[in-house]
């Protein structure tokens, strides 16, 4: 029997999340290098787009089905995933580094007596040993780590690994779950007013103290709207109560890896850079040309945001029209 790599794929409101394809792709590539097989566990009720993961090189998908499990329940989910990992004798169990993955992966790792490494952004395989790379100190350094345990659990940072489909078609097995353990469970989900979250957005427009006051953030919102972006903020702005904490980017806010980050009136303090420096492209607009934000920006305009932002929004609207 070939050895197994097990992945956990996440659904939200009955739809697979984008990270599922990324996780499947990474598992497939590790499995090809090691000569292993890949399986996936998905937990929930009817999953509308489950077929879309069938062409990502997995050998098998097991759908643990129960309509009480549409919402996350750590007590139920950990039993199912740990149980199936033991049943298959999986050597690797991989999760997305999402809020659910970060909650669940450590619980499973204890049940499997497995080492655990979070938030992987890169990996290499040499002599059948896998070395994983993760950011530490809020991205100020990178660490290469390996496992000293038989079973190995790790999580992948979203948006880093590009999904690649293959022409396989994976078998889906359905298992009904009777009496899941629901002692710990989500009873309600509250969405934050239909806005895009910085943690998941591909483009972020962020405002800092240079915006002068909450009444000016419509300028940030309008540009974000034109770009299809999420609104972010520096801590100075959040502490002043101009913007909610969920928008804070940085060491004590969210770590983000979008393809474009636009920093407006943000000085670029080390704690802010820590949260966004891994963005693929950074644009800075700041009237102080010596601001540290320009040290990491790909493109900068050293001018007044109140003049530049409306023009920027206008130009993007023209482009998209």
């Amino acid at each position, binding site marked *: 029997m070939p050895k197994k790599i097990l992945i956990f794929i996440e659904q939200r409101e009955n739809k697979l999340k984008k990270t599922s394809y990324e996780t499947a792709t990474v598992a497939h590539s590790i499995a090809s290098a090691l000569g292993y097989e890949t399986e996936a566990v998905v937990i929930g009720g009817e999953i509308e787009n489950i077929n879309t993961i069938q062409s990502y090189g997995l050998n098998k998908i097991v759908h643990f089905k129960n309509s009480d499990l549409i919402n996350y329940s750590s007590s139920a989910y950990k039993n199912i995933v740990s149980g199936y990992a033991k049943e298959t004798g999986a050597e690797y169990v991989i999760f997305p580094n999402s809020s659910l993955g970060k909650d669940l992966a450590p619980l499973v790792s204890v049940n499997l007596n497995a080492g655990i*490494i979070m938030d992987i952004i890169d990996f290499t395989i040499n002599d059948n040993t896998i070395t994983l790379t993760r950011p530490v*100190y809020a991205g100020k350094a990178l660490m290469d780590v390996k496992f000293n345990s038989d079973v190995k659990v790790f999580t992948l940072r979203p948006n880093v690994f590009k999904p690649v489909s293959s022409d396989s078609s994976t078998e889906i097995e359905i298992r009904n779950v009777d009496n899941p353990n629901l002692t710990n469970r989500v009873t309600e989900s509250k969405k934050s007013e239909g806005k895009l979250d910085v943690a998941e957005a591909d483009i972020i427009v962020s405002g800092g103290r240079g915006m002068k006051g909450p009444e000016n953030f419509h300028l940030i919102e309008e540009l974000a709207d034109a770009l299809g972006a999420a609104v972010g903020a520096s801590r100075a702005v959040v502490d002043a109560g101009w913007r909610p904490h969920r928008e804070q980017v940085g060491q004590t806010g969210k770590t983000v890896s979008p393809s474009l980050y636009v920093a407006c009136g943000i000085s670029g303090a080390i*704690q802010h850079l820590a949260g966004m420096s891994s963005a693929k492209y950074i644009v800075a607009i700041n009237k102080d040309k010596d601001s540290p934000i320009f040290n990491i920006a790909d493109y900068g305009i050293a001018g007044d945001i109140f003049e530049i932002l409306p023009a920027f929004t206008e130009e993007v609207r023209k482009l998209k029209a």
Partner: protein
Amino acid sequence: MKIAVCVSHVPDTATKIKIGSAEKIIDPAGVTYIINPYDEFAVEEALKLKEKFGGDSEVTAVSVGNDANKETIRKALAMGVDKGILLKTDVETDSYFVASALSGELKSGGYDLILFGKQSVDFDNSITGQLTAEMLGYNCISVVVLLNIDGNKITAEREIEGGREVISTELPAVITAQKGLNEPRYASLKGIMAAKKKVIEEKVLTDIQNKTEILKLRLPSPKNPGRIIGTDKSAVPELVRLLREEAKVI
């Protein structure tokens, strides 16, 4: 209510990281260490719960590390925690090690609630609370921004992508604190003086192993210095062109 709060001792967030000589840890020269910022929310919540439940409620701060960690335990004592425990080791620990040490210490203590910060700002793992919970067989809620305890029932809100989840579970439990849960109090002068008289019990750890191994710590490759393409709105069309044609991100 018997409460434990686990605190970690970390480099100040303003620290510029330099790699140490063995390339496995940072160079500690010139680095100031502080209580992990998220742990301050955990300490504050523990103190608020003690005030709410009164009676013989007690809060114990626990830390895994070396003698230097006592500074962080003292900070918690100065905020109002009753006593401290230092689980001593000189080795570089991974999260599994720390959770094994903590659960080993806490399992016989009859704790109703154990609080953590949602992550340490050094290794950013965000798992020590969950690992400890599972080792103890406690329920766990991570990244909590709102906490209500009524009898042995817990309702909490945790932050997720694009919103919050309301979770219900029961004591005994582990909670990991996110910014927004509360406003940590400052240690008063009186608190700082009182902390000097409080006991920090020390226990030496043996027989615990890491399950992962650091091979190398390195700095990310520096970004190419960017371009300032202008100083007023006349630079905007060029910026948009670059984003579209060179970066291909819009």
